[in-house]
């Protein structure tokens, strides 16, 4: 089994398990709990409205799998970044990032993205870089089809897009 966020998490997160995402081919963490901070972050980036958002697209799971594939050192740095994002939320609201409503979460992400941080971030992986990375990975998962799993991205239906080839 691949090491995941919930195994490496060391404080700051709410470990209440969410339903596991559906299993799919390739390396994944379908048997472990989803990290609610990462889930809240990607849902902030691509919110659910009258159409599916990041949650239904299981983007947290995909990103977590991607990080796990990149090795324990990288994964641990991302876990640390989620811890810091959580600390940023607590510093502003007294609550965990996963407990914020959409507007509050967007406010925290916006400030952290622009470098307005209230906790210390490592120089070699600053807050802006972490947020930019998650944005990129989330949108790639939402709108981009990867050979990694071959499934149709959730975002295509929202745009009425079909590539026209099977």
């Amino acid at each position: 089994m691949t090491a995941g966020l919930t195994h490496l998490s060391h404080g700051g997160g709410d470990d209440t398990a969410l339903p596991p995402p559906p299993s799919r081919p390739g390396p994944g963490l379908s048997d472990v709990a989803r990290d609610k901070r990462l889930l809240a972050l990607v849902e902030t980036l691509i919110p659910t409205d009258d159409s599916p958002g990041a949650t239904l697209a299981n983007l947290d799971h995909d990103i977590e799998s991607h990080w796990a594939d990149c090795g324990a050192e990288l994964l641990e740095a991302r876990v640390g970044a989620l811890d810091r994002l959580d600390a940023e939320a607590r510093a502003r609201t007294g609550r965990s990032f996963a407990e914020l409503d959409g507007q509050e979460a967007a406010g925290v992400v916006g400030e952290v993205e622009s470098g307005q941080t209230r906790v210390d971030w490592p120089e070699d992986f600053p807050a802006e870089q972490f947020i930019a990375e998650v944005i990129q990975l989330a949108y790639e998962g939402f709108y981009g089809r990867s050979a990694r799993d071959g499934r149709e991205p959730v975002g295509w239906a929202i745009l009425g897009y079909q590539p026209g080839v099977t």
Partner: protein
Amino acid sequence: MIDRYDVLIVGSGPGGGTVAAHAAEAGLRVLLVERGAAIAPADAPQDHLHNTMSWRYRNMCHAPDSDPRSVESAGVVHVVEPPDPRRIDSAYALGGGSLTWGMQAWRFDPDDFRMASKYGVPAGSSLADWPLTYEDLKPYYAQAERELGVAGPAARPGELVDRAYPMTLFAPSEVDEWLAAGAQRCGWATQPVPLAINTVPHAGRPACIRCRQCVGFACPVDAKNGSHNTMVPRAVKTGLCDLALQTRVTEVTTDARGIVDGVELIEPQAGGGLQRRRVRAKAIVLAAGAIETARLLLLSHSRHHPGGLGNTFGHVGRHLQTHTYPVALGVLPPDVAPVLAGPGVGTATLALTHDNPGVIGGALLANDFVMTPIAFWESALPPNVPRWGKANKDAMRRFFGRVVDIRGPVQQIPSPDLRVTLQPGVRDACGVSTVRLGGEIHPETRRAARFIEEQAVRWLTESGAQPVWVGQQSDATYHQAGTARMSLAPEDGVTDRGGRVHGHDNLFVADASVHVTNGAFNPALTIFALSIRTSQSIIETATAGWRQRPTPAPIRRKDNR
């Protein structure tokens, strides 16, 4: 594979495939060496993140083992592996870049062949005329259009399209007509974009299905015409052409007198692993792209050729060019139907390729290909749209398909310092020295690109797009050219006007390395046409047999290693 051929070709892209077809059909025994694999249409990757047009995860089709290149920028050297776009790679596959290309099959303009005469030579540049003219190449362009299978306009509005194309294009879209009207208000004529694509069943392959993933992808129905499905099959059909796939040439070999006599290559073994092998040929043709062709010439140094082959005057690797692409984008008016079917590129103006005020050269401008959703998110949302969140999601729904992208290949002004050299100490997985790409784009290229960008904005504005904005201007990571430029005199270049390397009667270059300048157009049709022309000299050389060749006379040498 046998040990001795008439013609040995390195690289199966537009140049190599074309030479293979013509040489084999002339009855010569041919070995076509390709570093990548053959990719069947059914296996064409449909990955929207990993394709040759993705700046982030470019996929070379056949991922090589460690193959670093060093890229020098502002005095700092970065060692980069595939798929980093700074490497300026083409697809590593049978057919090379023509497997995944955008199929734009333009002829160069007559003025593209005489840039120095027309504009003078700017300081710091190596701008020069070609040693041949458009008229010299014109019959080969027509031949290439027929052999490749180009769909062009039914009407022939100008000299550049003065021959009947094998196929006619798809009917223009509402966007094409809207752009034509806007161009007219700018005082520019427009014309359809010639495409090497089957618009009807042709040459035993089906017509394009108008899918919405095109440039950067191998065609899933094999309707995109490239070297892999036109030239290479012709060569193989003769029974005289052996294909050596996933095989790498590491050196062009010479005999004791310094005469080219074959190559050293690394091929896969039947039971796994790799083995080195030496293969001899009467004529060697380098068609590996402007970077790898230059690399091979530089790697092939010896006592007789201490600076590498063809490098007596230090030109090998210099004058590296691609194209610089300005981009303007605009939102379609509500009454114009968006382009929802591929390929998408349809209308061009050639009014800006030359004779522009205050700049050297110029570019064609055309609307671009249909975009995948992730490419649209990356590059085509209006500038005031937030990068994420509800507003981004709303904007994607509102604007996807409704943004028109105008862009064009600005002719780069060559510089002797923009070059490919060997990078000491950095070797690939096979232990072969690798290259460094260094130098800066010439300021005149930047000036021309700014001008063309302004015109692209003007076109969209006059067409009625609202809003209109400037996209990310970039120096293309494809269209590599210039590193073995042709010249009349040996001291001015690497090959003669027939692609033969100066001082070597049996060593040829058949790719865009020979381009003195790279045109205001996509260059692939010129590679096909030139390679048909070059094939004649190659066939003559290889037909002459194993004759005693004079030792090349050593002349003044500049060490370019």
